[in-house]
């Protein structure tokens, strides 16, 4: 019998198989690229879900993403530090904004909270878009420093040029986030989060520091999302406000998490791993112009048949086996 939140053996096995494939298979470059980006989106979905585990559905995580992207890119541009350092600074910027969220939206719940988070994306977005001097405004930042190669002993991981290395890097990144997400479900902290989600008043009665738990979850989630944004900026090489603050980065983690299973340790990751490669590799080449309709159809059918996400279904299947 699995403990709540513990991923079933099957899911673990699949994950390890994927890692092994990425490491050793000499597949086509495009497979590495898509798998890497799927891991990236998996990490993003997991980061969002960490806060969603407290019961708060945020529609504004793009704010952290964009702040992380711009934070890291600007630190790199002005202070010429290595991207491997500035991405953490980017995450910190995201975290600070998360803290501001906590200060302002502390009493909000439900739909009011969702709307406030949605509105809060505009503040950094418009500020950056108008601050021509600092950020080049609407022109966006081009020529952002790429992630430099990492030397581990005799092997060089050229994360930017070599797609296999990039895939590996993103996979490792996702694993770190998976671990943190796992901890947010199955640790003392995890139990506190769960109690806050189930019933805030009851939780505070038994001594759970509800605001503190929410703050911690929010800051971790904001930091990781900002980190994702920073990595994205250095992978792409150029960003603009409309891109990194777009609804796409607020909505996709939500959709992937629900698709994959919100209450599974690997749920959001699984959602990304299934949908993203299917979309980019299969749907795009089957229907160059109609792939989005197929994507939408898959989504509708999945939720109708698996209301708790694919992860939950897999969990049940392996439990009853």
């Amino acid at each position: 019998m699995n403990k709540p939140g513990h991923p079933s053996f099957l899911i673990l096995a699949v994950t390890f198989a994927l890692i092994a494939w990425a490491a050793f298979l000499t597949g086509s470059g495009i497979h590495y690229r898509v798998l890497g980006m799927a891991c990236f989106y998996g990490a993003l979905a997991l980061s969002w879900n960490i806060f969603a585990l407290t019961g708060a559905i945020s529609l504004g995580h793009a704010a952290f993403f964009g702040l992380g992207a711009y934070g890291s890119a600007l630190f790199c541009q002005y202070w010429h530090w290595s991207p491997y350092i500035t991405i953490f600074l980017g995450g910190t910027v995201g975290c600070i904004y998360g803290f501001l969220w906590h200060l302002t939206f502390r009493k909000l719940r439900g739909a009011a909270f969702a709307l406030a988070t949605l509105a809060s994306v505009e503040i950094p977005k418009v500020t950056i878009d108008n601050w021509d001097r600092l950020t080049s405004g609407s022109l966006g930042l081009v020529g952002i420093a790429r992630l430099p190669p990492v030397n581990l002993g005799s092997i060089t991981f050229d994360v930017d040029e070599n797609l296999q290395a990039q895939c590996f890097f993103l996979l490792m990144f996702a694993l770190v986030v998976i671990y943190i997400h796992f901890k947010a479900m199955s640790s003392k902290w995890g139990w506190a989060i769960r109690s806050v989600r189930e019933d805030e008043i009851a939780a505070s009665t038994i001594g759970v520091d509800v605001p503190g738990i929410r703050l911690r979850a929010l800051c971790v989630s904001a930091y990781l999302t900002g980190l994702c944004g920073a990595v994205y900026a250095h992978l792409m090489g150029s960003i603009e406000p409309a891109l990194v603050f777009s609804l796409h980065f607020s909505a996709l983690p939500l959709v992937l998490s629900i698709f994959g299973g919100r209450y599974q340790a690997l749920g959001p990751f699984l959602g990304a791993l299934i949908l993203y490669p299917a979309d980019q590799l299969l749907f795009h080449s089957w229907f160059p112009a109609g792939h989005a309709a197929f994507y939408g159809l898959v989504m509708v059918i999945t939720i109708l048949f698996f209301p708790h996400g694919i992860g939950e279904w897999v969990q049940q299947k392996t439990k009853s086996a």
Partner: protein
Amino acid sequence: MVRSLGRLAIVLLYMTLQAAVVFADAIRIGEVNPLTGKLAKHGLEIHEGILAAVEEVNARGGIKGSMVELVSRDDQSLPEVAINQTEELLYRVKVIGLVGGYVDALVGPISELAAKHRTPYVASASLQRSLTEGRQNPYFFRVSQLDGVAKPLCDFVIEMIHPKTAAILYAATPGSTEFGHDVEACLRNAGVTIPIVEKFRPGTLDFSSFLLKVRQSQPDILISGGFYPDHLILVRHLREQKIPLPIYLAPWGVAYASFIEEMGEASEGLFGLCAWNPGITLPGTEKESELFVERFTRRFSKPPNTTTMHGYTSARALLAAVDKTLQSGQELSGDRISQQLRSLDLILPMEHLAFNQNGDPKHYDQVVVQIQKGKLVVVYPPNRATGKIMEH
């Protein structure tokens, strides 16, 4: 509408079959365009232009006996999807050349990938300076550039309008912003007072307050750097509220037959820019232009426009380079095709196509048109003009 249904069905079916249709020994070229999303209209137009060029070549028996196969992908207006799909085309499908692309945020990443893979990329609709200056990408070429839009526009305003005051509106996108800055600098240099310089975000549904400011300051001309849908809203609100404005000049979105058709009376007197349109073509290419319009209309059940022609021109350039490579007896490779592109010299309806060492077109200049009685009339430059400016 049944016609458009049929037409679209044909296009979509054709594109769906692209992945399945494989000619033996085919020459494969790839394109990545926004086929869905907000940019879909122009993305599809570029696609059709490229397709027209490919089919033209195949109708003549292909290049040295081999058919040309066009593999199309959608970038959903997202740079990262553009990268994914370009990589798919380069790695899996193994195309020997790339065309297409609509916005510079998407063209940039594609051009970098093309360079990494040593595959030539002829962009159909790239404008910004940063893509060619100082970047020295020997595999990147484009058939358009911002100077070919901003300079004719500015010259036209200064030489033929001589306004005392001007208002500038531009969109918060990199291309439109660069344009806005260019035009503002150019006009200020010429001594024009600019009381309003306004930036708006695409997707804005209402321009009433902006128009109120325009009414207040009464400029002689409004230069609107928004796009097709923005003009649909802005011009109608302008007319509805009877804002006194002598001249409305828009580099993007106005000089289209479909714009005139949708807007009807409200489009009378507006000024726009275009590189080509049916009836507006490089002197000396009238016959070729007419043939193209006729063939295109028969194939796609609608006339081509300037965006279509950008796609067509870029594809013609790539195919001509492929042809020259094969004619000289060499095997196709990215480097050889790029070399041929560098020395290309073609007279096409849209422009006298030749690339400089940065990959920019040497002779890309748009013309200024005015919508008069439902038709596009060229009013600038004088050597291309087909009519005089009509007072509205």
